[in-house]
């Protein structure tokens, strides 16, 4: 089965500093990859999804960007963090097709606090 590695687990960054969160996937190829954010007391907000290398779709306008330099690597970045970027970030993987495979796999998340 798939395994999602996401790091770091926790991060405290000052306002205006850059950000790079990395997610890698094992056990599959050509997955769809997703970045979600869960703000305190709220649900999962889809930030970006990618169907392949270099192909990124943004769901909401924001201060963040995403890149997919390799098939099983998905990176979430920011040039200058805002206080509102604080939250719990989750990377997820879903097979691109297949009637039998409906499970999305998640990383353990990154708790980002912008101070």
């Amino acid at each position, binding site marked *: 089965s798939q395994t*999602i590695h*996401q790091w770091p687990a926790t991060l405290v960054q000052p306002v205006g500093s850059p950000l790079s969160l990395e997610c890698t996937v094992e056990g599959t190829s050509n997955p*769809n990859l*997703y970045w*979600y954010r869960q703000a305190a007391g*709220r*649900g*999962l907000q*889809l930030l970006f*999804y990618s*169907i*392949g290398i270099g192909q990124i779709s943004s769901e909401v306008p924001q201060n963040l960007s995403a890149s997919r330099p390799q098939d099983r690597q998905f990176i979430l970045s920011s040039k200058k963090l805002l206080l509102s970027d604080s939250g*719990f970030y*989750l990377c*997820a993987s*879903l*097979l*691109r*097709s297949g*009637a039998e495979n*409906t*499970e*999305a*796999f*998640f*990383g*353990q*998340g990154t*708790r980002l606090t912008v101070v």
Partner: protein
Amino acid sequence: DQQVKQNSPSLSVQEGRISILNCDYTNSMFDYFLWYKKYPAEGPTFLISISSIKDKNEDGRFTVFLNKSAKHLSLHIVPSQPGDSAVYFCAAIVNAGNNRKLIWGLGTSLAVNP
């Protein structure tokens, strides 16, 4: 526009009783639905899924029911255990070729009391 709605933000149930978590959706193009359980500061854990061509799927204590005409699904946990206390998310998948999108509800916090 919330395409997947979990209208109850919280639910409290006694241990041993049935927990029923509800989810409504608006997009008739959704073809799979999933339920996840999440503890704070952890990634969601997959529980059970159902294809849109079925109306019931059962796995141990978890059963998911789908009513397509009502665009409604529910997760039943029987019997409920204190360890089931967590936030439960309903999600839907819509396919557009290789582009599979996951759409999530806002979650329902379940508390199972001993």
